[in-house]
């Protein structure tokens, strides 16, 4: 079987359509299972009470936000280096999901912070670097949105994403440094990560669910991007000729 065939948007479009249910349905099932374990089976935390349960969403969202940035940069780089349109489209598709998860981790983090730390926001190293990660996503998305010509948008986005990936460790390190210098605002979140097995199970189940969801939604979005960009090519017009009576 020739996998390179699917590097062409034309061939990938129907394949993505077939694959989506295979990721979307397990994602939905795992969400339900993970939430059930998280809300009904996992024990109440003796320090934080019930409030800690937001962690089951918060932690997977934060992981996905970071991971998707690297993945996005990887795809953008592949698309730029090998002139592979589909990889660039995947990068644009992933960027939205990544930004969403990063935002979600910030939002749930502040909701979690209010009952446990007593404030919505602290300038903690992790919070700050997540916020900066969100800014990087916003930069990528707005750069691509500002460029009308798709191939230039892909390549410009790739340069920015790669520069961003090189910068992420530097930013993380500098924020950590800044945070240790400005003691006082730091709050130790947990002494040691002692975590009940059911809590871990819920978190990992939801992580898997988020993962599968990201794949499904990226595939769905990349289908839209393919449609949009190839709207003048033959294969789409042939497929839609049966729809023409609607217009």
């Amino acid at each position: 079987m020739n996998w390179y065939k699917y590097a062409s948007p034309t061939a990938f479009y129907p394949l993505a359509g077939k694959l989506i249910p295979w990721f979307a349905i397990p994602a939905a099932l795992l969400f339900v299972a993970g939430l059930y374990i998280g809300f009904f089976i996992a024990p109440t935390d003796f320090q934080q009470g019930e409030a800690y349960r937001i962690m089951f969403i918060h932690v997977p969202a934060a992981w996905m936000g970071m991971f998707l940035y690297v993945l996005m940069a990887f795809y953008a780089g592949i698309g730029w280096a090998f002139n592979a349109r589909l990889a660039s489209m995947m990068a644009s598709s992933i960027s939205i999901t990544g930004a969403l998860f990063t935002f979600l981790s910030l939002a749930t983090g502040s909701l979690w912070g209010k009952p446990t730390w007593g404030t919505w926001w602290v300038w903690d190293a992790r919070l700050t670097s997540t916020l900066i990660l969100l800014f990087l996503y916003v930069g990528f998305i707005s750069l691509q949105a500002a460029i009308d010509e798709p191939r230039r948008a892909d390549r410009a986005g790739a340069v920015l994403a790669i520069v961003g990936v090189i910068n992420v460790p530097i930013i993380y390190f500098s924020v950590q440094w800044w945070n240790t210098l400005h003691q006082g605002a730091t709050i130790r979140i947990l002494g040691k990560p002692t975590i009940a097995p059911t809590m871990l199970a819920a978190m990992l189940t939801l992580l898997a669910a988020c993962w599968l969801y990201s794949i499904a939604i990226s595939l769905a979005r990349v289908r839209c991007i393919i449609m949009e960009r190839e709207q003048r090519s033959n294969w789409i017009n042939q497929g839609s000729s049966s729809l023409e009576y609607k217009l």
Partner: protein
Amino acid sequence: MFRWIVARDLMLAWRRRADVLSTLFFFVIVVSLFPLGIGPETELLRSIAPGTVWVAALLASMLSLNRVFSNDYHDGTLEQLLLTPQPLYLVVVGKVLAQWLVSEVPLVLIAPLVGVQFGLSPDTLLVLFVSLLIGTPILSLIGSIGAALTLGLRGGGVLVALLVLPLYIPVLIFGAGAVDATIVGIDPMANIYLLTALLVLSLVFAPWATAAALRISLE
């Protein structure tokens, strides 16, 4: 070639002195706004001075970024420069160096004066000066990537800020951190060393990225 580019850009800037001065005054005005917004207590001002001066320097450097390539882009010179046999890397370094000399160096020179307004001690002023001297070339180098990426786009100015400001954060942290350290009586050299390391890193990688971005923008 390298020297020619620097000389040419300096000459062009000299013919348009007002542009340079406006960036400088922007910096001075922004810094002066903070005491007006916060109040004249010396203790408070002294503690916010490093951050204020550095943030103002970041913003002022954003203002001048658009000029690095856009004039040459509009009159077609940039396209000719891309066609020259010389490595584009050198062309970029030359243009960035000229931009730094024109827009950032005056700012670095005036920063100690501005620092006096905030009641900083002489050795703190020296650290402020040194940290800006090492830090502002990084701003120019990283900023040139953003300027090259947004060449000829609508809303270029605001977009550059969105792309570049998050990347400036380490420079801000180490630069303002060095000054902060001096104020509270810690040795600022750790910050200065890290800033220098960033300068070396960005000198190696940023012009390369800018060159790639220019090729993309001029395709």
